[in-house]
């Protein structure tokens, strides 16, 4: 991946300058929000770039008004459920598409891909009815079940499986490994970095799920952080700072996870690149 020439001297300085410039642009909205979250209500419009006054009151009130404590629990449980389930179902179906031969394989794969194209808004009302009939309106299962499988994950893992050398499969067969053995001993370990990425994306997309939680929960104990945030955003006019503070609280856990996983992810990606 890295070229054999490393920049040095002016080119190095130039690269760093560019990096810093872009980083500033990317971080700018986040910085403004973080600064605003710590400002007291009356000062939120002054000096938006500098933390001239710092208080925890806004955050505390946003926490209270948005019922963020309970929502964080709900979001976490649901996201974990969804993440685990998505990895498992994606690995299984990707294996089927990559290594198993059966009639209609292309067609079924096409159907899978087609599900990526179905706009969520089209399914929301019917899904709500289904969940309602199952009695799962205010529950973890209701929040998680529609997302336990995803064609996105299947697609991603299938790509990785397809790139595994054919001789690996041959070698495994000679070692007496059937499909399940090959899956367990060879395919999954080699796909681990991608599975890690999939888990991360699965967690994120569940955490960021915007529409579904607002539709199926009628009991605000079952709000997730995003629906809590949406409620906050419809707050009265005197509280733009509350919305900003809520935004920061909701994004914070993910930033922390990203911080931790970013290193794993990069290490995993660099180490796991299959090279001959």
């Amino acid at each position, binding site marked *: 991946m890295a070229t054999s020439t490393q920049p040095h001297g002016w080119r190095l300085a130039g690269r*760093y300058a560019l990096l810093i410039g872009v980083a500033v642009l*990317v971080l700018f909205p986040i910085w403004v929000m973080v600064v605003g979250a710590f400002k007291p209500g009356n000062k939120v419009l002054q000096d938006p770039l500098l933390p001239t006054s710092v208080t925890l009151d806004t955050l505390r009130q946003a926490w209270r008004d948005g019922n963020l404590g309970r929502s964080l629990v709900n979001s976490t449980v649901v996201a974990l459920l969804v993440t685990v389930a998505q990895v498992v179902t*994606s690995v299984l179906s990707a294996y089927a598409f990559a290594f*198993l031969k059966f009639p209609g394989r292309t067609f079924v794969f096409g159907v899978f891909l087609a599900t990526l194209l179905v*706009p969520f*808004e089209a*399914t929301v009302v019917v899904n709500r009815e289904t969940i309602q009939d199952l009695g799962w309106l205010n529950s973890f299962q209701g929040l998680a079940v529609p997302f336990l499988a995803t064609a996105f994950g299947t697609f991603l893992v299938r790509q990785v499986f397809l790139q595994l050398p054919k001789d690996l499969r041959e070698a495994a067969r000679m070692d007496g490994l059937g499909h399940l053995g090959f899956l367990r001993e060879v395919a999954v370990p080699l796909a681990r970095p991608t599975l890690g990425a999939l888990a991360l994306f699965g967690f994120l997309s569940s955490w960021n799920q915007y529409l579904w939680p607002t539709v199926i929960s009628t009991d605000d104990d079952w709000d997730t952080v995003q629906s809590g945030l949406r409620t906050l955003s419809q707050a009265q006019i005197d509280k733009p700072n509350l919305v900003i503070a809520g935004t920061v609280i909701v994004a914070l856990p993910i930033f922390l996870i990203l911080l931790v996983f970013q*290193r794993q992810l990069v290490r995993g990606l660099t180490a796991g690149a*299959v090279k001959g």
Partner: protein
Amino acid sequence: MSRRWRDAPLAVAFLAPSLAVLGAFVLYPLGRAMWLGHQRCGATGGNCQSNGWDQYIDVFRSDEFQQAFSVTVRFALLTVPVGLALGIGLAVLADKHLRGMGFFRTVFSSTVATSVAVASLMWFFLLNPSVGVLADWIGGVAKDPGLLRDESTALWAVAVSSIWANLGFTFIVVTAGLQSIPADLYESAYVDGAGGWMRFSNVTIPMLGPTLLFAGVVLTSRAFQSYGEFDLLTGGGPNGSTTSLTYLVYGNNSIIKNNDGLQAAVAVLLFLVLLVLSVLQIRGLERRVHYGN
């Protein structure tokens, strides 16, 4: 048992979990929506009666659908190419073993942590004409009446928010793609006398093929299905200039609110549009994609 069918039982077992969930929560609602799309229902949900399958055609050709379709397409044309280009740019920029690169990589991927709600609210405040920081800096239209309030700039402004929010995702995906390009390809090119730009266009871009295809399809499908941005930033306005197809289906200010049959028809038509687009994208581009092996 014939060879073709030998793997079938195992395949069924492996595919069953995904198919069960996708079938119940994506395909079944889609089917219902397709059936509902030719009906008209009372505002309170019941009393559905058929209005003829030509309802689909009329909906497709109606003013509101055409405008929403145009908005959606323009939105995708704005966000997808720019998003891809920026993602590639940032990934290449951060693709060196330099000191502190880990920090920069974290920064560049950070927007993936922002949800639609979070990102939209951030930009809503930044661009607010009365009190937003960016509005003050940009001046002009941004202050009066505001980038999100002016018909000619609103869609651009929403696009910027969306591009920013998707930057992290594209960066991560392209970085992963870059990591899997074998170093010897670059070395061969270097030995051949190719300069930096030549190496980029003749090695990097082609080898990134599958990655870019993947990212492109995902970004396009996301762009076509965007909803939260429009809901929070503009409420579909001003004057319908940011009413995308999804907002037409589900938005609070949509003219077909509480009109189940028409909502279903628009949603199904959106799906068909996406289907055609994706087939074109994959067919048109996959041949150019170099899978290696």
